[in-house]
Protein backbone atom coordinates (compact mmCIF):
# COMPACT_ATOMS: atom_id res chain seq x y z
CA UNK A 1 0.00 0.00 0.00
CA UNK A 2 1.30 3.43 -0.94
CA UNK A 3 0.82 6.05 1.75
CA UNK A 4 -0.72 9.44 1.00
CA UNK A 5 2.45 11.35 1.82
CA UNK A 6 4.43 9.30 -0.70
CA UNK A 7 1.88 9.87 -3.48
CA UNK A 8 1.51 13.58 -2.65
CA UNK A 9 5.28 14.06 -2.86
CA UNK A 10 5.55 12.27 -6.19
CA UNK A 11 2.55 14.18 -7.59
CA UNK A 12 4.09 17.47 -6.47
CA UNK A 13 7.41 16.49 -8.10
CA UNK A 14 5.61 15.64 -11.34
CA UNK A 15 3.57 18.86 -11.24
CA UNK A 16 6.72 20.93 -10.73
CA UNK A 17 8.56 19.18 -13.58
CA UNK A 18 5.61 19.45 -16.02
CA UNK A 19 4.94 23.13 -15.29
CA UNK A 20 8.65 24.01 -15.41
CA UNK A 21 9.01 22.25 -18.77
CA UNK A 22 5.95 23.96 -20.28
CA UNK A 23 7.02 27.42 -19.07
CA UNK A 24 10.58 26.89 -20.29
CA UNK A 25 9.42 25.70 -23.72
CA UNK A 26 7.31 28.85 -24.15
CA UNK A 27 10.14 31.12 -22.94
CA UNK A 28 12.91 29.05 -24.54
CA UNK A 29 11.74 29.13 -28.15
CA UNK A 30 11.90 32.93 -28.66
CA UNK A 31 15.04 33.27 -26.51
CA UNK A 32 16.83 30.48 -28.40
CA UNK A 33 15.75 32.03 -31.73
CA UNK A 34 17.17 35.39 -30.68
CA UNK A 35 20.42 33.88 -29.40
CA UNK A 36 20.82 31.75 -32.53
CA UNK A 37 20.44 34.55 -35.05
CA UNK A 38 21.22 37.88 -33.43
CA UNK A 39 24.36 39.83 -34.31
CA UNK A 40 23.94 41.94 -31.18
CA UNK A 41 27.25 42.41 -29.33
CA UNK A 42 25.78 41.73 -25.90
CA UNK A 43 24.68 38.27 -27.04
CA UNK A 44 27.61 36.65 -25.17
CA UNK A 45 26.42 38.25 -21.92
CA UNK A 46 22.98 36.68 -22.34
CA UNK A 47 24.51 33.33 -23.33
CA UNK A 48 26.62 33.40 -20.17
CA UNK A 49 23.58 34.28 -18.05
CA UNK A 50 21.54 31.44 -19.55
CA UNK A 51 24.40 29.00 -18.81
CA UNK A 52 25.04 30.23 -15.26
CA UNK A 53 22.81 27.59 -13.59
CA UNK A 54 25.08 24.88 -15.08
CA UNK A 55 28.20 26.11 -13.29
CA UNK A 56 26.84 27.93 -10.27
CA UNK A 57 26.21 25.88 -7.08
CA UNK A 58 22.41 25.58 -6.78
CA UNK A 59 22.65 26.87 -3.22
CA UNK A 60 24.09 30.16 -4.50
CA UNK A 61 21.17 30.67 -6.84
CA UNK A 62 18.80 29.56 -4.10
CA UNK A 63 20.35 32.02 -1.67
CA UNK A 64 19.97 34.96 -4.04
CA UNK A 65 16.39 33.99 -4.84
CA UNK A 66 15.59 33.70 -1.15
CA UNK A 67 16.93 37.24 -0.67
CA UNK A 68 14.89 38.46 -3.65
CA UNK A 69 11.72 36.77 -2.30
CA UNK A 70 12.11 38.32 1.17
CA UNK A 71 8.69 39.95 1.81
CA UNK A 72 10.27 42.61 4.01
CA UNK A 73 12.09 44.46 1.22
CA UNK A 74 12.94 44.81 -2.47
CA UNK A 75 11.18 42.65 -5.07
CA UNK A 76 9.60 40.35 -2.48
CA UNK A 77 8.33 43.37 -0.54
CA UNK A 78 6.85 44.84 -3.71
CA UNK A 79 4.99 41.58 -4.48
CA UNK A 80 3.75 41.36 -0.89
CA UNK A 81 2.53 44.97 -0.67
CA UNK A 82 0.92 45.36 -4.08
CA UNK A 83 -0.22 41.83 -4.97
CA UNK A 84 -0.31 40.05 -1.60
CA UNK A 85 1.97 37.38 -3.09
CA UNK A 86 4.70 35.60 -1.13
CA UNK A 87 7.16 33.38 -2.96
CA UNK A 88 9.56 32.17 -0.27
CA UNK A 89 8.63 28.67 0.94
CA UNK A 90 5.73 28.32 -1.54
CA UNK A 91 5.15 26.14 -4.61
CA UNK A 92 5.15 29.26 -6.84
CA UNK A 93 8.57 30.16 -5.44
CA UNK A 94 10.13 26.77 -6.21
CA UNK A 95 8.50 26.88 -9.66
CA UNK A 96 10.27 30.17 -10.44
CA UNK A 97 13.51 28.75 -9.05
CA UNK A 98 13.17 25.60 -11.18
CA UNK A 99 12.48 27.63 -14.31
CA UNK A 100 15.66 29.67 -13.73
CA UNK A 101 17.72 26.58 -12.91
CA UNK A 102 16.41 24.80 -16.03
CA UNK A 103 17.12 27.62 -18.52
CA UNK A 104 20.27 26.08 -20.09
CA UNK A 105 18.74 22.62 -20.37
CA UNK A 106 15.96 23.94 -22.62
CA UNK A 107 17.62 26.86 -24.39
CA UNK A 108 20.95 25.27 -25.33
CA UNK A 109 19.48 22.34 -27.31
CA UNK A 110 17.02 24.67 -29.08
CA UNK A 111 19.74 27.23 -29.89
CA UNK A 112 22.12 24.55 -31.17
CA UNK A 113 19.35 22.99 -33.24
CA UNK A 114 18.55 26.32 -34.90
CA UNK A 115 22.21 27.15 -35.51
CA UNK A 116 22.71 23.72 -37.05
CA UNK A 117 20.16 24.38 -39.79
CA UNK A 118 21.49 25.78 -43.09
CA UNK A 119 20.98 29.56 -43.33
CA UNK A 120 19.49 28.94 -46.76
CA UNK A 121 16.30 27.45 -45.22
CA UNK A 122 15.43 30.79 -43.68
CA UNK A 123 16.53 32.75 -46.71
CA UNK A 124 14.58 30.49 -49.09
CA UNK A 125 11.42 30.95 -47.02
CA UNK A 126 11.90 34.74 -46.98
CA UNK A 127 12.37 34.91 -50.77
CA UNK A 128 9.18 32.83 -51.08
CA UNK A 129 7.40 35.69 -49.28
CA UNK A 130 7.03 34.04 -45.87
CA UNK A 131 7.18 36.09 -42.67
CA UNK A 132 9.66 35.34 -39.89
CA UNK A 133 6.88 33.85 -37.76
CA UNK A 134 5.61 31.62 -40.56
CA UNK A 135 9.19 30.57 -41.36
CA UNK A 136 9.82 29.72 -37.72
CA UNK A 137 6.74 27.56 -37.24
CA UNK A 138 6.57 25.96 -40.71
CA UNK A 139 10.26 25.50 -41.58
CA UNK A 140 12.63 25.91 -38.62
CA UNK A 141 10.73 24.32 -35.74
CA UNK A 142 9.74 21.09 -37.58
CA UNK A 143 13.37 20.61 -38.64
CA UNK A 144 14.77 20.85 -35.11
CA UNK A 145 12.32 18.32 -33.64
CA UNK A 146 15.09 16.18 -32.06
CA UNK A 147 16.43 19.31 -30.32
CA UNK A 148 12.95 20.19 -29.04
CA UNK A 149 12.43 16.67 -27.66
CA UNK A 150 15.92 16.74 -26.12
CA UNK A 151 15.21 20.12 -24.51
CA UNK A 152 11.90 18.89 -23.07
CA UNK A 153 13.37 15.61 -21.74
CA UNK A 154 16.51 17.25 -20.28
CA UNK A 155 14.49 19.98 -18.57
CA UNK A 156 12.00 17.49 -17.17
CA UNK A 157 14.74 15.13 -15.93
CA UNK A 158 16.78 17.97 -14.44
CA UNK A 159 13.76 19.40 -12.58
CA UNK A 160 12.89 15.96 -11.18
CA UNK A 161 16.42 15.78 -9.77
CA UNK A 162 16.60 19.39 -8.54
CA UNK A 163 17.65 19.60 -4.90
CA UNK A 164 19.74 22.52 -3.64
CA UNK A 165 17.85 25.44 -5.12
CA UNK A 166 14.43 24.00 -4.17
CA UNK A 167 15.56 23.30 -0.62
CA UNK A 168 16.91 26.84 -0.25
CA UNK A 169 13.84 28.58 -1.69
CA UNK A 170 11.11 26.20 -0.55
CA UNK A 171 12.39 24.29 2.44
CA UNK A 172 10.68 20.94 2.91
CA UNK A 173 6.97 21.57 3.45
CA UNK A 174 4.95 18.39 2.70
CA UNK A 175 2.38 18.98 -0.06
CA UNK A 176 3.79 22.45 -0.82
CA UNK A 177 7.53 22.33 -1.51
CA UNK A 178 8.76 18.87 -0.52
CA UNK A 179 9.64 17.17 -3.79
CA UNK A 180 11.01 13.61 -4.10
CA UNK A 181 14.72 14.48 -4.04
CA UNK A 182 14.25 16.42 -0.79
CA UNK A 183 12.06 13.67 0.64
CA UNK A 184 14.91 11.17 0.12
CA UNK A 185 17.20 13.40 2.19
CA UNK A 186 14.56 13.77 4.93
CA UNK A 187 13.86 10.03 5.07
CA UNK A 188 17.56 9.20 5.35
CA UNK A 189 17.90 11.77 8.17
CA UNK A 190 15.17 9.93 10.08
CA UNK A 191 16.72 6.52 9.20
CA UNK A 192 13.63 5.55 7.18
CA UNK A 193 15.61 3.75 4.47
CA UNK A 194 12.63 1.81 3.12
CA UNK A 195 10.86 5.00 2.07
CA UNK A 196 14.13 6.49 0.74
CA UNK A 197 14.58 3.33 -1.34
CA UNK A 198 11.17 3.73 -2.96
CA UNK A 199 11.72 7.38 -3.88
CA UNK A 200 15.23 6.67 -5.16
CA UNK A 201 14.16 3.74 -7.31
CA UNK A 202 11.40 5.78 -8.96
CA UNK A 203 13.73 8.73 -9.65
CA UNK A 204 16.43 6.39 -10.95
CA UNK A 205 14.07 4.61 -13.35
CA UNK A 206 12.45 7.84 -14.53
CA UNK A 207 15.80 9.50 -15.26
CA UNK A 208 17.09 6.37 -16.99
CA UNK A 209 14.02 6.07 -19.23
CA UNK A 210 14.22 9.77 -20.15
CA UNK A 211 17.89 9.47 -21.09
CA UNK A 212 17.20 6.36 -23.18
CA UNK A 213 14.49 8.34 -25.01
CA UNK A 214 16.89 11.25 -25.61
CA UNK A 215 19.67 9.02 -26.92
CA UNK A 216 17.34 7.02 -29.15
CA UNK A 217 15.96 10.14 -30.86
CA UNK A 218 19.46 11.55 -31.20
CA UNK A 219 21.06 8.60 -32.95
CA UNK A 220 23.12 9.43 -36.01
CA UNK A 221 26.02 11.76 -36.82
CA UNK A 222 24.18 15.09 -36.60
CA UNK A 223 22.70 15.02 -33.19
CA UNK A 224 22.63 17.23 -30.18
CA UNK A 225 25.11 15.27 -28.06
CA UNK A 226 27.84 14.77 -30.67
CA UNK A 227 27.67 18.49 -31.42
CA UNK A 228 27.74 19.48 -27.74
CA UNK A 229 30.32 17.41 -25.92
CA UNK A 230 30.43 19.93 -23.10
CA UNK A 231 26.86 19.05 -22.17
CA UNK A 232 26.97 15.32 -22.78
Amino acid at each position, binding site marked *: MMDTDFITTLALTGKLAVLTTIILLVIGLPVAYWLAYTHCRVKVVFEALVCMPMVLPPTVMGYYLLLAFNPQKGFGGFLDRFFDVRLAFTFEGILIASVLAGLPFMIQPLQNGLQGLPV*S*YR*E*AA*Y*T*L*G*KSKTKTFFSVLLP*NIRPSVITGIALTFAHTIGEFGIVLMVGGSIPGETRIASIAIYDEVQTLNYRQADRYSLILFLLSFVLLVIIYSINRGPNNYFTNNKHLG
Partner: protein
Amino acid sequence: MIELDIRKQMLTADGLRSLEVSVEIPRHSLTCIWGPSGSGKTTLLRMIAGLVKPDKGTISINSIPVYDSGKKINLVPQRRHVGYMFQDYALFPNMTVEKNIRFAQGRDKDKELVETLIREFGLDNLRRQKPDKLSGGQKQRVALARAIAAKPHLLLLDEPLSAVDEEMRLSLQDEIVKAHTLFSMTTLMVSHDRAEIARLSTHLLPIGQGKTVGLEKASFL
Protein backbone atom coordinates in the same frame (compact mmCIF):
# COMPACT_ATOMS: atom_id res chain seq x y z
CA MET B 1 13.44 45.61 -66.89
CA ILE B 2 15.86 45.15 -64.00
CA GLU B 3 17.95 48.26 -63.27
CA LEU B 4 21.04 47.89 -61.12
CA ASP B 5 23.43 50.63 -60.07
CA ILE B 6 25.14 49.38 -56.93
CA ARG B 7 28.42 49.38 -55.08
CA LYS B 8 29.57 47.00 -52.36
CA GLN B 9 32.87 46.55 -50.55
CA MET B 10 33.50 42.86 -50.01
CA LEU B 11 36.00 41.19 -47.71
CA THR B 12 37.58 38.34 -49.69
CA ALA B 13 40.56 36.02 -49.14
CA ASP B 14 42.64 38.55 -51.14
CA GLY B 15 41.54 41.48 -48.98
CA LEU B 16 38.98 44.19 -49.62
CA ARG B 17 37.43 44.19 -53.06
CA SER B 18 34.94 46.55 -54.60
CA LEU B 19 31.97 45.28 -56.56
CA GLU B 20 30.45 47.92 -58.83
CA VAL B 21 27.69 47.10 -61.28
CA SER B 22 25.60 49.45 -63.37
CA VAL B 23 23.38 47.65 -65.88
CA GLU B 24 19.87 47.35 -67.26
CA ILE B 25 18.68 43.80 -67.78
CA PRO B 26 15.88 43.42 -70.33
CA ARG B 27 12.65 41.64 -69.49
CA HIS B 28 12.42 37.96 -70.47
CA SER B 29 16.19 37.73 -70.94
CA LEU B 30 18.31 34.90 -69.54
CA THR B 31 21.42 36.66 -68.34
CA CYS B 32 24.50 34.85 -67.07
CA ILE B 33 26.70 36.47 -64.46
CA TRP B 34 30.22 35.43 -65.25
CA GLY B 35 33.47 36.06 -63.43
CA PRO B 36 36.30 34.51 -61.44
CA SER B 37 35.85 33.04 -57.95
CA GLY B 38 35.47 35.71 -55.30
CA SER B 39 34.42 38.37 -57.82
CA GLY B 40 31.02 38.77 -56.14
CA LYS B 41 28.65 36.82 -58.38
CA THR B 42 26.67 35.32 -55.52
CA THR B 43 26.86 38.59 -53.55
CA LEU B 44 25.27 40.38 -56.52
CA LEU B 45 22.37 37.90 -56.59
CA ARG B 46 21.96 38.18 -52.82
CA MET B 47 21.84 41.98 -53.03
CA ILE B 48 19.09 41.80 -55.64
CA ALA B 49 17.13 39.34 -53.48
CA GLY B 50 17.50 41.55 -50.39
CA LEU B 51 19.64 39.05 -48.47
CA VAL B 52 22.69 41.36 -48.48
CA LYS B 53 22.57 45.15 -48.31
CA PRO B 54 24.65 47.11 -50.85
CA ASP B 55 26.79 50.01 -49.57
CA LYS B 56 25.04 52.43 -51.90
CA GLY B 57 23.10 52.66 -55.13
CA THR B 58 19.71 51.65 -56.52
CA ILE B 59 17.97 48.44 -57.55
CA SER B 60 14.62 48.42 -59.30
CA ILE B 61 12.65 45.43 -60.55
CA ASN B 62 10.06 46.14 -63.24
CA SER B 63 10.19 49.87 -62.34
CA ILE B 64 9.59 49.17 -58.62
CA PRO B 65 12.47 50.49 -56.52
CA VAL B 66 13.42 47.74 -54.07
CA TYR B 67 16.61 49.44 -52.88
CA ASP B 68 17.63 53.08 -52.98
CA SER B 69 20.34 54.21 -50.54
CA GLY B 70 19.57 57.90 -51.23
CA LYS B 71 15.84 57.55 -50.48
CA LYS B 72 16.48 55.01 -47.69
CA ILE B 73 14.43 52.33 -49.44
CA ASN B 74 15.38 48.73 -48.66
CA LEU B 75 12.54 46.26 -49.15
CA VAL B 76 12.76 42.99 -47.23
CA PRO B 77 13.18 39.82 -49.36
CA GLN B 78 9.51 38.93 -48.75
CA ARG B 79 8.38 42.03 -50.67
CA ARG B 80 10.74 41.88 -53.64
CA HIS B 81 8.95 39.12 -55.60
CA VAL B 82 12.24 37.51 -56.51
CA GLY B 83 12.63 33.74 -56.86
CA TYR B 84 15.97 32.43 -55.64
CA MET B 85 17.42 29.01 -56.25
CA PHE B 86 20.22 28.35 -53.78
CA GLN B 87 23.39 26.37 -54.48
CA ASP B 88 22.33 23.78 -51.88
CA TYR B 89 18.71 24.00 -53.16
CA ALA B 90 17.44 24.70 -49.60
CA LEU B 91 14.54 22.24 -49.89
CA PHE B 92 12.72 21.94 -46.57
CA PRO B 93 13.34 18.39 -45.25
CA ASN B 94 10.08 18.26 -43.28
CA MET B 95 7.96 18.73 -46.41
CA THR B 96 7.31 16.43 -49.35
CA VAL B 97 8.15 17.52 -52.89
CA GLU B 98 4.56 18.67 -53.41
CA LYS B 99 4.41 20.53 -50.09
CA ASN B 100 7.71 22.28 -50.83
CA ILE B 101 6.21 23.61 -54.06
CA ARG B 102 2.83 24.48 -52.50
CA PHE B 103 4.57 26.30 -49.63
CA ALA B 104 5.90 28.83 -52.14
CA GLN B 105 2.43 30.11 -52.89
CA GLY B 106 0.78 32.97 -51.06
CA ARG B 107 -2.89 33.25 -50.04
CA ASP B 108 -4.02 32.92 -53.66
CA LYS B 109 -3.30 29.20 -54.04
CA ASP B 110 -2.85 28.45 -57.72
CA LYS B 111 -3.32 24.66 -57.74
CA GLU B 112 -3.20 24.60 -61.52
CA LEU B 113 0.27 26.16 -61.56
CA VAL B 114 1.51 23.63 -58.98
CA GLU B 115 0.19 20.76 -61.10
CA THR B 116 1.72 22.27 -64.25
CA LEU B 117 5.09 22.61 -62.53
CA ILE B 118 4.97 19.04 -61.18
CA ARG B 119 4.11 17.76 -64.65
CA GLU B 120 6.59 19.89 -66.61
CA PHE B 121 9.51 19.04 -64.31
CA GLY B 122 8.69 15.32 -64.26
CA LEU B 123 7.99 15.23 -60.52
CA ASP B 124 4.69 13.36 -60.56
CA ASN B 125 6.16 10.10 -59.21
CA LEU B 126 8.11 11.98 -56.57
CA ARG B 127 5.40 14.26 -55.21
CA ARG B 128 5.11 12.39 -51.90
CA GLN B 129 8.85 11.89 -51.42
CA LYS B 130 10.87 13.85 -48.87
CA PRO B 131 13.96 15.74 -50.23
CA ASP B 132 16.48 13.39 -48.56
CA LYS B 133 15.29 10.59 -50.86
CA LEU B 134 15.98 12.61 -54.04
CA SER B 135 19.05 12.68 -56.30
CA GLY B 136 20.90 15.95 -56.98
CA GLY B 137 19.15 16.41 -60.32
CA GLN B 138 15.71 15.78 -58.80
CA LYS B 139 16.39 18.25 -56.01
CA GLN B 140 17.40 20.83 -58.58
CA ARG B 141 14.12 20.37 -60.45
CA VAL B 142 12.08 20.69 -57.25
CA ALA B 143 13.99 23.83 -56.24
CA LEU B 144 13.39 25.34 -59.67
CA ALA B 145 9.67 24.46 -59.57
CA ARG B 146 9.36 25.91 -56.06
CA ALA B 147 11.04 29.17 -57.03
CA ILE B 148 8.65 29.56 -59.98
CA ALA B 149 5.55 28.57 -57.94
CA ALA B 150 5.83 31.88 -56.07
CA LYS B 151 5.28 33.70 -59.43
CA PRO B 152 8.39 35.89 -59.08
CA HIS B 153 9.11 38.92 -61.24
CA LEU B 154 12.71 37.80 -61.47
CA LEU B 155 14.32 34.37 -61.12
CA LEU B 156 17.81 34.18 -59.62
CA LEU B 157 19.79 30.94 -60.02
CA ASP B 158 23.00 30.62 -58.01
CA GLU B 159 25.24 28.10 -59.79
CA PRO B 160 22.30 25.75 -60.23
CA LEU B 161 24.32 23.04 -61.98
CA SER B 162 27.44 22.97 -59.85
CA ALA B 163 26.51 19.83 -57.92
CA VAL B 164 25.53 17.47 -60.76
CA ASP B 165 27.53 15.35 -63.22
CA GLU B 166 28.04 16.21 -66.91
CA GLU B 167 25.17 14.11 -68.29
CA MET B 168 22.72 15.46 -65.74
CA ARG B 169 24.04 18.97 -66.35
CA LEU B 170 22.98 18.92 -70.02
CA SER B 171 19.54 17.61 -69.17
CA LEU B 172 19.05 20.19 -66.43
CA GLN B 173 20.19 23.00 -68.70
CA ASP B 174 17.22 22.08 -70.87
CA GLU B 175 14.97 22.29 -67.82
CA ILE B 176 16.19 25.79 -67.07
CA VAL B 177 15.59 26.94 -70.65
CA LYS B 178 12.15 25.29 -70.55
CA ALA B 179 11.26 27.03 -67.29
CA HIS B 180 12.53 30.34 -68.63
CA THR B 181 10.54 30.21 -71.85
CA LEU B 182 7.41 28.41 -70.59
CA PHE B 183 6.80 30.89 -67.78
CA SER B 184 8.21 33.97 -69.61
CA MET B 185 10.69 34.57 -66.81
CA THR B 186 13.41 37.14 -66.52
CA THR B 187 16.29 35.02 -65.31
CA LEU B 188 19.66 35.89 -63.85
CA MET B 189 22.04 32.99 -63.41
CA VAL B 190 25.52 32.60 -61.95
CA SER B 191 27.83 30.31 -63.89
CA HIS B 192 31.52 29.95 -64.63
CA ASP B 193 31.14 27.34 -67.32
CA ARG B 194 31.70 28.95 -70.75
CA ALA B 195 29.88 26.18 -72.64
CA GLU B 196 26.91 26.48 -70.32
CA ILE B 197 26.76 30.23 -70.78
CA ALA B 198 26.99 29.90 -74.56
CA ARG B 199 24.21 27.31 -74.57
CA LEU B 200 21.78 29.01 -72.23
CA SER B 201 22.12 32.74 -72.06
CA THR B 202 20.81 35.58 -74.16
CA HIS B 203 22.96 38.14 -72.34
CA LEU B 204 26.15 38.15 -70.35
CA LEU B 205 27.05 40.18 -67.28
CA PRO B 206 30.82 39.86 -66.73
CA ILE B 207 32.01 41.05 -63.34
CA GLY B 208 35.38 41.13 -61.67
CA GLN B 209 37.44 43.67 -63.63
CA GLY B 210 36.61 47.08 -62.23
CA LYS B 211 33.17 48.55 -62.70
CA THR B 212 30.74 46.62 -64.87
CA VAL B 213 28.72 48.90 -67.12
CA GLY B 214 26.14 47.41 -69.45
CA LEU B 215 25.43 43.89 -70.63
CA GLU B 216 27.09 42.04 -73.45
CA LYS B 217 25.35 39.85 -75.97
CA ALA B 218 26.15 36.27 -75.09
CA SER B 219 27.07 35.51 -78.70
CA PHE B 220 30.50 37.14 -78.16
CA LEU B 221 31.68 33.79 -76.78
